[in-house]
């Protein structure tokens, strides 16, 4: 009888502490975001942010004779138009891009509105999120080091990695100067929720893996699954916000002054346009769908190596398939006349519900071959 390879208890302990610290910091970030939203409602929410209007005027002014200037008109959904202006200095290759938008698809100014205090709170929140993510990453890495393997062998580890993937995706978008700070609060909330469930319900000590999980496919299949989960989650948030903003727009058109479900109109006004949310959720889902397909195929290859059959309709496999078909349904809906907009959005919500059930529901309530150590 040989001994199994050892676990480094100090590193394992450090990992737990780092994860808890990350949760504390995320909580602070959440409060900062809440302050941002609260203060932001006090500032005047300009229908068109000054900044945007200003820069547009500026371009027109600087487009002197020597410059090449083009204005492209884009027809919008509601009958309005938006324009995109591009200028280039003649003889030089460099182009200056300015995009202006018409009143039709105005993105709101963001959570902080025009309030400086709120903006400061928002910046603090982002810094805290970065700090939290660093601690979080440290927690995952030390967990892996403590057992010298990929740190996603059970649901606790899977959840930690998944929450991290989501936060990291958001921070990467921010870093590339995309206008996504409005995502901060939902992302931090979703991350905290996932970590909360992970540390309370799903926790297991850091250990080696059962032989069924000794496979390079663990790293491939599970890490892509984690990534897909994070991205689907983000798309889900965008879909919800699209539905909310869309209702808000309709209520506004009908002369109502509050958002759906009695929410404050000020919140909705500060958020991006419904079409922005809609496009975002479509783009994320479309981007992730091929990867999700890959995840399922990688899982099938692994199953073939481990169990002898690449597809056995094991509950986990079945629900991955259901999720896949549901997202295929959504993509089809987008391409089918009469199914765009809200109907497609409902399908996206249903598809994400399938994903969630596959993750929590199947692991906890249904017994199948996909048993993780611990849970």
């Amino acid at each position, binding site marked *: 009888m040989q001994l199994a390879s050892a676990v480094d208890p100090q590193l394992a302990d450090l990992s737990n502490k780092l994860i808890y610290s990350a949760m504390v910091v995320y909580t602070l970030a959440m409060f900062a975001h809440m302050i941002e939203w609260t203060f932001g409602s006090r500032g005047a929410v300009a229908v068109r942010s000054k900044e945007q209007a200003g820069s547009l005027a500026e371009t027109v002014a600087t487009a002197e004779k020597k410059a090449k200037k*083009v204005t492209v008109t884009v027809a919008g959904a509601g009958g*309005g138009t938006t324009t995109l202006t591009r200028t280039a200095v003649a003889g030089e290759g460099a182009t200056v891009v300015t995009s202006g938008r018409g009143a039709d698809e105005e993105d709101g100014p963001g959570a902080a509105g025009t309030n400086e205090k709120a903006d400061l709170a928002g910046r603090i929140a982002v810094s805290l999120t970065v700090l939290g993510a660093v601690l979080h990453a440290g927690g995952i890495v030390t967990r892996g080091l403590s057992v010298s393997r990929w740190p996603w062998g059970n649901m606790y580890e899977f959840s930690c990695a998944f929450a991290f993937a989501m936060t990291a995706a958001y921070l990467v978008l921010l870093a590339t100067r995309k206008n996504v700070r409005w995502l901060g609060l939902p992302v931090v909330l979703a991350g905290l929720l996932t970590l909360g469930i992970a540390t309370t319900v799903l926790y297991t000590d850091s250990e080696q893996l059962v032989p069924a999980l000794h496979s390079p496919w663990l790293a491939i299949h599970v890490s892509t699954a984690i990534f897909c989960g994070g991205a689907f989650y983000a798309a889900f948030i965008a879909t919800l916000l699209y539905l909310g903003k*869309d209702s808000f727009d309709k209520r506004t058109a009908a002369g109502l002054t509050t958002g759906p479900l009695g929410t404050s109109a000020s919140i909705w006004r500060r958020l991006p346009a419904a079409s922005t949310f809609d496009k975002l959720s479509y783009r994320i889902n*479309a981007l992730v769908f091929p990867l999700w397909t890959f995840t399922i195929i990688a899982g099938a290859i692994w199953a073939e190596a481990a169990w002898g059959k690449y597809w056995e309709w094991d509950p986990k496999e*079945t629900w991955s*398939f*259901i999720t896949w078909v549901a997202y295929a*349904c959504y993509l089809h809906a987008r391409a089918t006349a009469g199914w765009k907009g809200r109907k497609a959005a409902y399908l996206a919500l249903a598809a994400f519900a399938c994903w969630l059930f596959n993750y929590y529901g199947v692991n906890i309530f*249904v017994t199948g071959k996909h048993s993780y150590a611990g849970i």
Partner: protein
Amino acid sequence: MSNTTTETEQPPAPEDGAAERLSTAPVESDGPTGIGAFGWARWMWRQLTSMRVALILLFLLSLAAIPGSLIPQYQNGQGQLKVEAWKARHATVAPVYEKLQLFDVYSSVWFSAIYILLFVSLAGCIVPRTWQFVGVLRSQPPAAPRNLTRMPVHAVWRTEADADRVNAAAHRLLRKRGFRAHLSGGAVAAEKGYLREVGNLLFHLSLFALLGGFAWASLASGTGGKLMVEGEGYSNTITQLDDFNGTRFYGNQDLDPFYLKLNGFTSKFQTKGDQIGAARQFTANVEYYAGGDESKLKKSTIEVNHPLEIGGSKVYLIGHGYAPVISVKNGKGDVVYRGAVPFLPQDGNLTSTGVVKVSDYGLGPDGNKTQLGFSGFFLPTAPLSFEGTGPVSLFPGDAAPELVLNAFSGDLGTDSGLPQNVYQLNTRKLTQLVQDGEPAKARLKLGEGWTLPDGYGSVTFEGYKQWASFNVSHRPGNAIALAGGVLAILGLIGSLFIQRRRIWVRAVALPGGGTQVELAGLARSESAKIAEELAELAVDLQDDAPASEEEDDAAASEEDAAPAASEGEGGATETDVPEETGVPTAPEASSDPAVPADQKSKE
């Protein structure tokens, strides 16, 4: 041209129709055309191959897959047992479920109906589209609509350059950007992103490969089971396998011929922490040869994720346990039984149960022919006392192995000729021996013996070996399914990441001198990139066609061409469909009923 808030009450914005032509989506038809059975058949076929029905079928497919994940299925691992157990617990609904094939969802009539319909729909949709796409590839991009400034994405300016030269420059620039461009009738028509359609068609076609791989596997695969104690070997024939499940094209006679022997087995377990006892490593050391050629004997290992491929079969390690080596002597001291007997694990710590059947015992103490049977437990790590727990192992490793045995004598039933379960003792004609007024029972440590009561002889726990059980699986069609999967991903990437778009440029000499340059772009509604692409093109084009100073005039003339949103009646006017030019080189456009020319908005 984002059209995400389109309401169902409103007529679909016409630009959708225009954009749809950039996809392989079939055109939706409203009702049966023509009369009689043929008309109806054609209508039904159109419906079946429409996107709406495809959507519904996909939705149904995902719904139909759900029950199979919640109700035990025959085809899952240990399905039979689980289904029987479930049926026993739900006796009232079980017959109904059985009728509805709910224990066999994935081969049920209704599940099959859905996916077969889906694949018929797919074929009916994709095959014609493929031909159509080939036609599109052969012809030129559709000619420019008459009024480019009515297109959803457009740009206009005025220049002093000559119209023909501007068109030629636009043609050149578009080609440089990788567009298929075509200059005729004073306008350039260009299109790019054909790979999107290729990807989409490839994806849908590869679904057939996946289905084919599945179908072949279910017709021509078979799996058998074999349990071997260390040192044992077997030939892969129906008589030597423990069990075998064949299919139409892989039956008892078709088994891949090979020989396999288990030389040794290694297992490791977690020794501390809250997962103590969890398995960490299983390795079976084997030797084998394919076919009948013994000289090709090779050594190898089989692990949980690493099956061994022999001939057309793969051998998977699926279980392991202990086989105590037991010897039995009769009253005269002759060895009547000696062997390693596989005991089956009952829990995670490998508390194992098994039986020993001594069928050749010979004559008993009373001079009559009799047989002995033993049932009992093997505990790899036995506790000090069974008090309160009974015989349970504490750990799956062999730290303190013990054997617990009950002894029986009588008729084992082995001579009746009926097949018997080797792991169970049929005690109907057996009586348990009695020792000191109690049922005869012994707890043996390694090497210990037990003298049976009433002169029945003795039993010795000589040692133990490990056994491993294997799944021998022959499954063709994997490569096809895998190829289908890989192609599907490639197709999806092309289909979802590549934009198919058209750009038109027209430069016309104005009556008052000078030239008006019009650019327009058309893409699927999800893309905002077309505007940027058009802007880049326009900037480049201005090298050849610099804008005149009186920009405002150009802007004004644009206003004439397309009334601003504020004057229009709702959304439709501004986002007008390109009117068809009637140029015969636009076959796709002129035959497309989904894009009616909007008469109302003509000036």
